[in-house]
């Protein structure tokens, strides 16, 4: 069979042959696909990593927050409220719509009837009921005049902003007039009738009491269970003329201020006074810090500093580290050894010590922030230089370097034009991992109080955290929001950095370095 088949092809006439190609020239086809650069390739790999992409978006959101929060917030760094200190998150709109987390609520345990009457007193006078809801009521028995009496106590949630109620303020005559004009214009009551301490059992430290009280400060109610007003009617002690809103039940005889050596003392409702001062009601979406600062803008301000600082430090460290590492790796030999030892010694100095010494020596001469920056730069470049050095050792003996050298390229050209671009992926990755490191260290150091940035940046996340930590039990929001912010920022930066590393060095996927 085989023989027969082969025979068929042995004597084929020449005319049966034809050229496959005659006119066409044989050459490679032009590449139809678009050339993809190293970066485009890395970006495609990066976008396949879902967690890193999510982290990148959250990161973008946090950065936008840091930029815009201080702008959106009506408060600046200097707006420190002396009374709204450590107050919970509050937005009037949200409170009206029953959103509990923004209703400025604090929980008060075991409020007896004296305390409940006190809250009621504020509600009756100002028209703003501080008690939001009763969580639980307890029954207990006490011995009173030989008999057992059943009493009740309540666990309640109160609006801390309403509960502040009335405070004493001393105004100049012009200011007093201005407030009256404002009251007439807006129809909002700020100044409430004056109460003489002698009428309320000599209580001078509690401006919220306007009714008849016993010696212990407990309200004495009339037979219908109503408060007995004790507003002063003594015109001779009145500080200034009052021609403005009067409270219901006032026949024009109540006085609204008291003379105080060239000024007037009044009882003002702080919530409305605040509106008069700032043009809006209190709105602290994250609450206030223990300095009376709006946490929303404070976190933004702190974060803005942290981010700018971290980017600056990383840029400087990367530049120094890259050049140092390049020289080390390229020349090798004794240069490498000498530079390596210098880096090694610097690297071994504990960072706390570095920061402290810089603060001691330089903070007063060049300012806190520059000396802080120098401390980071002194040791921060070492990791980068070690990385670059490794890359240089890897590439410097390869053929393309030898080829370039044969063509007469200088040392610096070889280093930065031929070898360095090969290490760029590693460097970008490193950058994304240095930034969270710097932010973390900066936060820790300001948290510990070794460096105080408040004179330069206003505040910092670390400072906010340490202020919040002091009152972590009574006002946990002061610690919570900065913690959430810094935690999220660090997690996202690390995820993002890991994603970048995998994208730029696909071979080292999953290996920690």
């Amino acid at each position, binding site marked *: 069979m085989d023989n027969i088949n082969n025979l068929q092809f042995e004597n084929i006439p020449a005319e049966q042959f034809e050229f496959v190609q005659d006119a066409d020239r044989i050459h490679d086809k032009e590449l139809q696909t678009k050339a993809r650069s190293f970066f485009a390739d890395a970006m495609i790999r990066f976008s396949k990593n879902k967690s890193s992409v999510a982290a990148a978006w959250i990161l973008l959101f946090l950065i936008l927050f840091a930029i815009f929060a201080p702008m959106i917030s009506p408060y600046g760094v200097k707006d420190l409220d002396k009374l709204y200190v450590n107050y919970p998150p509050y937005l009037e709109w949200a409170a009206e719509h029953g959103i509990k987390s923004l209703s400025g609520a604090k929980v008060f345990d075991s409020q007896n009837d004296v305390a409940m009457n006190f809250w009621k007193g504020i509600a009756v006078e100002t028209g703003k009921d501080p008690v939001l809801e009763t969580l639980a009521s307890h029954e207990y028995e006490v011995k009173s005049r030989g008999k057992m009496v059943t009493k009740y106590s309540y666990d309640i949630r109160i609006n801390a902003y309403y509960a502040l109620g009335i405070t004493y303020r001393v105004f100049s005559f012009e200011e007093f007039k201005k407030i009256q004009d404002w009251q007439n214009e807006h129809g909002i009551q700020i100044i409430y009738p004056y109460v003489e301490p002698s009428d309320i059992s000599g209580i001078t430290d509690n401006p919220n009491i306007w009714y008849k009280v016993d010696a212990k400060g407990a309200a004495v109610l009339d037979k219908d269970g109503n408060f007995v007003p004790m507003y002063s009617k003594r015109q001779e002690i009145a500080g200034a003329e009052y021609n403005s809103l009067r409270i219901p039940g006032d026949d024009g005889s109540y006085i609204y201020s008291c003379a105080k050596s060239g000024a007037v003392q009044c009882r003002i409702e702080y919530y409305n006074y605040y509106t008069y001062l700032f043009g809006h009601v209190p709105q602290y979406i994250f609450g206030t810090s223990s300095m009376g600062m709006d946490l929303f803008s404070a976190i933004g301000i702190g974060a803005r500093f942290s981010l700018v600082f971290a980017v600056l430090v990383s840029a400087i460290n990367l530049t120094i580290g890259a050049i140092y590492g390049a020289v080390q790796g390229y020349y090798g030999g004794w240069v490498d050894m000498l530079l390596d030892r210098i880096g090694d*010694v610097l690297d071994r100095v504990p960072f706390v010590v570095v920061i402290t010494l810089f603060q*001691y020596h330089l903070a007063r001469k060049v300012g806190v922030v520059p000396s802080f920056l120098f401390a980071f730069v002194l040791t921060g470049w070492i990791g980068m230089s070690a990385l670059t050095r490794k890359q240089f050792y890897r590439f410097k003996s390869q053929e393309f370097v030898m080829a370039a050298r044969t063509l007469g390229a200088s040392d610096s050209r070889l280093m930065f034009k031929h070898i360095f671009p090969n290490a760029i992926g590693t460097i970008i990755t490193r950058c994304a991992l240095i930034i969270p490191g710097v932010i973390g260290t900066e936060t820790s150091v300001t948290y510990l109080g*070794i460096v105080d940035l408040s004179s330069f940046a206003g505040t910092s996340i670390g400072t906010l*955290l340490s202020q919040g*930590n002091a009152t972590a039990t009574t006002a946990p929001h002061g610690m919570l929001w900065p913690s959430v912010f810094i935690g999220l920022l660090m997690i996202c930066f690390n995820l993002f950095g890991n994603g970048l590393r995998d994208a730029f060095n696909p071979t080292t996927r999953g290996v920690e370095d």
Partner: protein
Amino acid sequence: MLKYVIKRLFYMIIVFFIITLMCFVLIRMLPLPVLPPEDSHTKVLLMRREALGYNEPYLVQFWIFLKNIFTKFDWGLSEKLYFGREVWDIFSQKLPATMLVNFYSIILSIPFGIIIGIIAALKKNTWVDYTLSTVTMVVISVPSFVYAFLIQYIFCYKLKWFPFLMKSGTDWFSPAMFVSMIPPIMALSFGTIASFTRTTRAELTEVLTSEFMLLARTKGLTKAQATVRHALRNCAVVIVPSIFGEFIGILGGAIIIEKIFAVPGVGGLTLNAITGLDYNIFMLSTCFYTAVGLLAGIVVDISYGFIDPRIRMGSRK
């Protein structure tokens, strides 16, 4: 091996002296604290300053400093915080608290970290592994004061299981002291557990795919036997040094935790010395932290050599 150890130790000592000298000179360059004129210690302190050569060149001062340490173990007197007291006495009183908290924390972290790491490696690429790896990543990223706050708020305030701050006193091994140590131990352990988990997982996944594991299974060992006898032993080459390194390392990194939980330890002392400008205490702390850092590095390197015969052989040639 011995030659290698000696060489490393020698190098370490030189680095230590260079760093100490740098810090010493920088600290001595600072203006001296003004002593209260009426205090009885002031005269003594002034005489001591004279004896320590405060008017001499810095190198002479350093020489006197070293001589005092090596002959009398005298680190100077506190001039601000603990006026007129020996710095070393104060420091050695603070040392037990720091050591104990760190010791307990490492004891807690080793089993947890390694076991979680093994689970994650054995269940690689399942939801168990993904969850554990995510949690590990989160714990490593989040700064330690955040979970210190969580522990304090949840366990100390809401549940009231532990006291807020560490108990003062020197009864280091009493039950009350131990209970009050639990929050700082927990806060320190989270990070350590997470880093052990990550190391173990990374190592074990690599070893599990190697060929000798296949051989072990082919010759009839069960998966558990093969993992424990062959894979884990190979992982130990990396894990054990990291335990040594971590133990010495967290001695140096616990300042924040010590501050939050009021641990009467070295970190708090250092912090007070920094803010209170007590230079002699700060100098001692600097030496301590530098030594701790250097020791961590060298112990890791040497333990690699002891555990892994390949590295030991390599160093001999």
